[in-house]
């Protein structure tokens, strides 16, 4: 298993570590639900060293990305970030990704740990005809997120000569942080909260983490593991590859149209024709379910309307924020109206649930 630059820190904090996408990662430092509440009421620190980080440069970088990714890269303003996907010709995703459009024509791409090898292979397979360089920066950079209402106040203490208040949602900048010049900082995250992600030179990652922990102490900032991260992103209605989308679940029926561009000027891209057909004739939709019952919906749990199975749970969990058990589920069209009562089937025992639009939780994004 691969170790992030912060592995020893997690060990010292007494975290429970698990294999996640080939990395030895903290799943929790304390009770998972307490960690969720910390992020919702204060802020939390996340080690994201496992995420893949790829820099695409060269004169054709943008045009190349537009031939592979679902969003319209040429239309992204520089210093802005957009959600996107890599799909196969059948429209099903290889991964979902973030595109950072740089001044000077480069594109910085953040991908999931579990798919990073497949993404890189896919990207390298398709460079022909483009003047591009695909550079894997995963091992050069550490990655830390701070997420929560006090994240700006905490991070600002470590930033010199830049006002984080200027950084809009899904924008990035290069700033001096902890004395390290030109550090990439983005206002992004996977929690639905105000938050930032930092791309730190590998050997400085532990120092920056410790500085954030120290600066965050008076605010009640704590380290947060993958268990809470999963609940936070589910509450915020954000997809996770392998759940809401995967090799058999396309982005259109998962409600990710905002990350898919059919603009004619974008030209052709891999998966376009298939996704256009699905968009014209969808058969299912990703919805939210809440249940007052004690059982926690899990991936694959069947969803019934009367005697008919109409879908299955994609992700489920306990939400300490809305005090219910929640799930995302793919259900067939006609069973997706908010307020509709359905049943979740736990090995023959039914538990009532109610359809609702995702997300379960959101804060205004300004």
């Amino acid at each position: 298993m691969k170790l992030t630059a912060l592995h020893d820190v997690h060990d010292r904090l007494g975290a429970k570590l698990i294999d996640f996408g080939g990395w030895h990662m903290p799943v929790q430092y304390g009770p998972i639900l307490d960690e969720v509440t910390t992020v919702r009421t204060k802020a939390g620190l996340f080690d994201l060293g496992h995420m893949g980080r790829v820099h695409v440069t060269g004169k054709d970088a943008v045009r190349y990305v537009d031939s592979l990714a679902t969003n319209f890269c040429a239309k992204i303003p520089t210093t802005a970030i957009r959600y996107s996907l890599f799909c196969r010709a059948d429209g099903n995703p290889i991964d979902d990704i973030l595109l950072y459009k740089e001044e000077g024509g480069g594109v910085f791409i953040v991908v999931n740990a579990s798919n990073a090898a497949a993404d890189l292979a896919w990207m390298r397979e398709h460079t022909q005809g483009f003047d591009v360089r695909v550079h894997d920066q995963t091992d050069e950079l550490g990655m830390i997120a701070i997420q929560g209402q006090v994240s700006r106040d905490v991070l600002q203490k470590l930033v010199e000569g830049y006002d984080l208040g200027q950084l809009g949602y899904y924008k990035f900048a290069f700033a001096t942080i902890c004395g390290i010049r030109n550090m990439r900082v983005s206002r992004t995250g996977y929690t639905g909260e105000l938050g930032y992600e930092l791309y730190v030179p590998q050997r400085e990652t532990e120092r920056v983490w410790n500085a954030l922990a120290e600066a965050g102490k008076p605010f009640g900032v704590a380290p947060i593991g993958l268990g809470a991260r999963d609940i936070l992103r589910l509450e915020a209605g954000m997809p996770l590859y392998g759940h809401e989308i995967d090799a058999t679940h396309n982005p259109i029926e998962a409600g990710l149209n905002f990350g898919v561009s059919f603009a004619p000027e974008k030209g052709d891209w891999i998966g376009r024709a298939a996704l256009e057909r699905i968009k014209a004739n969808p058969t299912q939709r990703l919805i939210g379910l809440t249940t007052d019952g004690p059982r926690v919906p899990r991936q694959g749990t069947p969803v019934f309307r009367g005697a008919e199975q109409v879908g299955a749970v994609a992700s489920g969990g306990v939400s300490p924020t809305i005090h219910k058990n929640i799930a995302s589920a793919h259900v067939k069209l006609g069973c997706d109206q908010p307020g509709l009562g359905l049943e979740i089937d736990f090995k023959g025992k039914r538990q009532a649930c109610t359809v609702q639009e995702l997300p379960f939780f959101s804060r205004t994004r300004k």
Partner: protein
Amino acid sequence: MTSKTMRPDDRKYSESHEWAKQDGDAVLVGITDFAVAALSNGNDSDLVYCDLPETGRDLAQGETFGEIESVKAVSDLNSPVAGEVIEVNHKVEEHLEILSRDPWNEGWMIRVKAASKTWASEKLMNAADYEKYLESQKH
């Protein structure tokens, strides 16, 4: 973590972390402190649900008699002993914190009328062997 407390040697243990203990004419079945800790990581609020069977159910050795669920995952409860369920400790279903507090006594789950008097000799471990088994599972 595993050697923190010596486990009681008045009972037998299964590889799936249940215990079985002779109690008069019947056998009590529960889960070990290791199982509870693995599910809850030491935080009893992480346990969310437990489903136990009705009385009268006939169980084969190793058969699933219920489920226990934490914030993270669901685990089957498997009976270390074959026989009929004659009593169920429904209090555990309502108060999962009992399992963290006292998995050995108050946290018993089902009382089984064993199909065989020699149930204790069947593929189960004593406390010392269970300790060794946990050690061997560590890595």
